[in-house]
């Protein structure tokens, strides 16, 4: 296959990942609205290019830490959407046996070290994972994904300094969706933002259009190459837009409709579809990818719905080995 062919194949892979993420989250939203999924659900609809563009540059044994809006990161890293959906449904067959839900999906078998319910919670963990890997002479690296809200928490500064200090193999990715919960990120963030803060700690940083998966792939590819060469941490700042509310029950109606409409015109899945069409990919091929995703995620939802609840006794498992609930000498 020619270089151009390789490149096209890569774009189609990215498209497939993004469509699977989009379909998963749209389905989860629908299921949440239908009362089938309990608890808080944070979707990343509109941000899929970041997850896909980052993870296509990772190996299976590379690790990843994520945040509360992490379904896309997990899917792109190779997690099984069926087990993810079952976890969202709180079922025994879910990744965490129903103990974690949307905010705590992890799949250690693909290096996904966990979503996180605390903003910036994954940053120190990523630094330590990288330090542990380095100590064990592993060649794996760690991708640390967080939002724009995290850059105003202390662990962001600590983590940048730490990773730079020990030259750790960490790729920091600030997935800047322009809004921290219900507040515009730029209204609560002083100065020029994440890249400048990284550079102040000696961490090279680039900023990229996070809705352009080709640009994300390129920027991350370059940064990952530096990290793999042992040059220490890098930061990629990917500007994107959260098309939906903070949670499934939030309409984010405070945003002007014109702003959201304009953002829809820039959303990454349709944007990549246009590129693929220009590159000669047939509409049927794109439709087939959509149909495959719909089948996969539809089956995941049906299986989750039919899956058993965890046995109540499982609430007492995996607390700790010693001193757990039933502990006796």
């Amino acid at each position, binding site marked *: 296959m020619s270089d151009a062919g390789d490149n096209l194949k890569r774009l189609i892979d990215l498209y497939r990942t993004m469509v699977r993420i989009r379909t998963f989250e749209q389905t989860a939203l629908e299921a949440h609205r239908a009362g089938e999924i309990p608890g808080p659900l944070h979707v990343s609809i509109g941000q899929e290019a970041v997850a896909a563009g980052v993870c296509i540059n990772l190996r299976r044994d590379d690790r990843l830490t994520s945040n509360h809006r992490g379904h896309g990161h997990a899917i792109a890293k190779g997690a099984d959407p069926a087990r993810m959906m079952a976890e969202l449904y709180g079922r025994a067959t879910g990744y965490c046996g129903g103990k974690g839900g949307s905010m705590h999906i*992890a799949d250690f078998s693909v290096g996904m070290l966990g979503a996180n319910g605390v903003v910036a919670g994954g940053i120190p963990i990523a630094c330590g994972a990288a330090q542990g890997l380095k100590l064990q002479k592993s060649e794996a690296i760690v991708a640390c994904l967080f939002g724009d809200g995290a850059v105003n928490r202390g662990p962001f500064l600590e983590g940048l300094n730490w990773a730079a200090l020990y030259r750790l193999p960490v790729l920091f990715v600030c997935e800047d969706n322009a809004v921290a919960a219900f507040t515009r990120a730029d209204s609560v963030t002083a100065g020029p933002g994440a890249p400048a803060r990284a550079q102040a700690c000696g961490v090279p940083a680039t900023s990229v259009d996070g809705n352009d998966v080709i640009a994300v792939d390129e920027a991350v590819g370059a940064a990952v190459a530096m990290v793999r060469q042992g040059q220490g941490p890098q930061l990629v700042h990917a500007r994107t837009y959260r098309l939906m509310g903070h949670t499934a029950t939030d309409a984010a109606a405070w945003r002007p409709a014109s702003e959201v409409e304009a953002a829809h015109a820039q959303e990454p899945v349709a944007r990549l579809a246009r590129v693929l069409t220009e590159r000669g990919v047939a509409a049927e091929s794109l439709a087939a990818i959509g149909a495959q995703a719909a089948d996969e995620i539809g089956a995941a939802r049906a299986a989750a719905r039919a899956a058993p609840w965890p046995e109540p006794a499982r609430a007492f498992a995996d607390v700790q080995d010693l001193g757990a609930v039933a502990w006796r000498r």
Partner: protein
Amino acid sequence: MAAVTLLEATRLAVQQEMRRDPRVWVLGEDVARGGLWGQYRGFVDEFGAERAVSTPISEATIMGAGLGAALVGTRPIIEMRIFDFVMCAMDELVNQIAKVRYMFGGQAKPAVVVRMPHGMWRNSAAQHSQMLEAWFAHLPGVIVATPATAADAAGLLVEAIRCDDPVLFFDPKDLWTATGDVGEPIAPIPFGLARKVRDGDAATVVTWSAAVPVATAAAEQLAGEGTAVDLIDLRTIWPWDQEAVVASVHKTGRLLVVHEAVEVAGFGAEVVARVVERLGPAALKAAKRLGAPRIPVPFAPPLEAEVRVTPDKVVRAVQSLID
């Protein structure tokens, strides 16, 4: 081996385990310089700067990085320098370390030891003197070790390092210089097994950490006056040796719990409540807690003395149970 200080006993314990297991390493402020207390003296020379890691004053990341390193298969010892600084790392400890195994459905066991030298020591005032171990007994997912002797500190630390559960290890600052024999090699001491310090029938006195020598002095004084108490050092408050305490109170019918921490809602309340539940109220003639008043630890020696439990206070408390 000859008698060593509690501080040296912990140094030997960690050294032994780092020699045994290359996955074990230490991170914390000034660790490469031997640690604030000298508890890692010589480590950087023997184990290198990658296993005896001096860190920035970044408590959140010291704690969180320890967790991340555990999740990829190493076994870090997270040094907090002084217990009170853990307040800067509470998310990483309470929301992350104590939860990941459970939240992720058992996919990972965070095998970390968090060392937190605690308690009053040389008039260090309100932010360097606290004993809040009861908070962590309340926290599912962790073990809470509170040793009082050189041998116990060493043996429990070896157990902690080999344990797959997160262990919160409260070094008793005020007892760093207390001496005792440690074995060679240092054998692990299982968690949840109390140590009987003295035998007696008059009352049961339960204690741990820096209050142990205080209660021991009181028990000796009482013995001189003809009152022999059963004195129990819990050594770990989670898990804790309910069987030893219940058996003793069954015998004596009187229970005093002594801790340096604030008395209100301290772990002493849990001990008394559990014993009452297990034995029934009729089995107890009297029960009492003795701890600090509910005030911050003050600086000036005469003010700090107001807060401390003392042998006299313990003696009076035992006498009040018996009278």
